[in-house]
């Protein structure tokens, strides 16, 4: 990332600080963009749900990466902020009597996404306040408390009861409209998610290379040293919580368009842990790591699910007397997932983005690579 090939010089700071500095990087990125947008035509449509789930995890894990990987504030309660975003958006779409011209123009859902971002951001800052005084383990505690207070108590007991429909709000098809497009099939959901992910990544990448991002990284590396250098650490920590909460809110608001309903089970503590797991698997402190981690986790889930289906079909047809296995097989899946996380962390502690970096270095000098032996 930080080096250039031989013979490449820049004559201005502007050229040096560009996102895509060499023609090769430019070509690579354009190729990737083409792949992202051509994807629905390249693969079978039942696989699209896998890809927009990856995009959802990327969106949610962006905030976690910002807090953990760039600002050093460990959070184990991010699902709470995603939940706040999802519920805000759903309730704005459902319960506010919007004027008809806004509904027809498809403005309601986009407005609700922005509002969801801000609500989740404020909620996140509220639980980030203790970070002014505590850090490390104690901050983990307060963010976990955010999860417990938000999802099982506030949302399940109070918010879900609004409108008297029981546990979940369902959004009838056709309600979620962005401008002229109604989000109703997998292709549209996929495009919507891809655009959101690209926008959020551009925002995050730009934040990280500005003064704000440098302040966050200084706080991560050593907060006392950062304070002596004149960085307002409380302000920047809270700003990190704000931005992370904003991304979480957008993720939540997006996810209701894919699910067509919203209910507390989608924001269990498991997901908070999963998103932290994603950034550890992908690599802490790297934006591409989020993509690798999300893809890894979603694909592992999908493979486990498919193998579970295959195994239970096989057992049912061949050994009907072993039918008890099929009822327990979901727990095998859970155990296998736990083991996968553990062994990944033990044997690949730097994450997938480190492997990617090694691979890039290898091919950069190929075929005369220097192995270091």
């Amino acid at each position, binding site marked *: 990332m930080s080096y250039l090939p031989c013979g490449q010089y820049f004559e201005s700071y502007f050229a040096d600080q560009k996102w895509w500095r060499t023609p090769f990087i430019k070509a690579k990125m354009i190729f990737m963009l083409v792949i992202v947008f051509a994807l629905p035509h390249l693969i079978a449509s039942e696989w699209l749900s896998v890809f927009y789930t990856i995009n959802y995890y990327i969106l949610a894990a962006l905030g976690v990466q910002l807090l953990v990987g760039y600002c050093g504030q460990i959070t184990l309660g991010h699902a709470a902020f995603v939940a706040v975003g999802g519920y805000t958006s759903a309730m704005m779409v459902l319960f506010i009597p919007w004027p008809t011209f806004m509904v027809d123009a498809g403005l309601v859902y986009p407005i609700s996404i922005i509002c969801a971002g801000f609500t989740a951001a404020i909620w996140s800052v509220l639980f980030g306040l203790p970070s002014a005084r505590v850090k490390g383990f104690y901050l983990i505690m307060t963010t976990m408390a955010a999860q417990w207070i938000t999802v099982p108590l506030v949302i399940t007991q109070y918010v879900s009861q609004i409108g008297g429909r029981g546990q979940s709000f369902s959004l009838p098809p056709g309600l979620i409209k962005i401008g002229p497009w109604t989000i109703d099939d997998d292709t549209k959901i996929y495009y919507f998610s891809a655009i959101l992910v690209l926008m959020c990544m551009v925002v995050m990448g730009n934040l990280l290379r500005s003064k704000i991002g440098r302040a966050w990284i200084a706080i991560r590396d050593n907060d006392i040293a950062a304070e002596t250098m004149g960085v307002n650490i409380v302000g920047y920590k809270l700003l990190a919580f704000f931005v992370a909460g904003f991304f979480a809110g957008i993720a939540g608001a997006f996810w209701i368009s894919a699910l067509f309903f919203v209910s507390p089970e989608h924001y269990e503590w498991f997901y908070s842990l999963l998103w932290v797991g994603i950034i*550890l698997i992908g690599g802490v402190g790297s934006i591409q790591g989020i993509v690798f981690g999300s893809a890894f986790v979603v694909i592992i889930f999908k493979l486990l699910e498919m193998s579970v289906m295959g195994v239970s079909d096989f057992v049912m047809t061949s050994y009907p007397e072993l039918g008890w296995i099929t009822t327990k097989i979901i727990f095998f899946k859970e155990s296998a*997932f736990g083991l996968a996380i553990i062994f990944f962390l033990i044997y690949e502690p730097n994450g997938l983005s480190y492997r990617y970096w090694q691979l890039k270095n290898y091919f950069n000098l190929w075929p005369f690579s220097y192995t270091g032996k």
Partner: protein
Amino acid sequence: MDLFLQLVVTGVMLGSIFALVALGWVLIYKCSGVLNLAMGELTMIGGYVCLGLYQKFVTFMPVNTAFVIALIGTMVVGLFLGLLTERIFLRKMIGEPILAVIMVTVGLSFFFKGMVFIIWDTDTQVFLPRIFSIEPIVLLGVTVGSVYLWSFVAALVLMVVFVSFFKFTRWGLSMQACADDEMAALSLGVSAKFVYALAWAIAFMAAGVGGTLLGNINGLNYSVSSLGLLVLPVVVFGGLNSIPGAIVGGITIGILQNLAGGYLDFYFPGGIKEIAPFIFMVIFLLFKPYGLWGWERIERV
């Protein structure tokens, strides 16, 4: 006033179980610096192992003997499981960043939970025939279920055993030394690996007994593992590396939880009893970030 006294007394007794489990948690943290999020699953495993052993033994033994033997058996199983867990999973994580270690314990909790449900199913199971009579005992004008009283006694006895192990035996002293200053302990010939293994074994044993006692109170199912999260407010209250803190914190959180269930439930219906310790914890952290007796970390650039 009667209700208040009632709630406080049962709170103390329930809290003693929390204290026992928190003790195991604090031991792991003190000795090896691992923040263990799998404590709830350790409790659950202990409860189910004891149930399995009890159901085997009770067929040819009187009820009380069978239970005591099953409890001892649980502790032996816990010992071996603790040693195994430390050796296979945690040993390799020494020196890794704190978050990676936490995620390994989270992975462990998924793994253990899946395993428990594979072996024992998800339905609520109870200790049958009953070990403790349903007849409540009147104690200083307060009626207490006998299972609470016996849990209190058992938790107290075990805590005394663990604390005296920690204070007076050679192994306990080496654990203390390691917790105090790992470098100095290593240079004096204390084996850090042995200490870590011992800490995990003790945590498994304490959690197993805690799970058994809770299983006797409410029946065994997944909700037993919520204790693993309740341990966190307990240790935050007492201070992360303080054993008396864990005990005092456990009892305080027990009382607090019961009081919240008794009084606040009327105003905030639904789960306030489970959430109250966490709300208390956040507020407490704002004022006393290192708990009652935790070590204050002095940082230098």
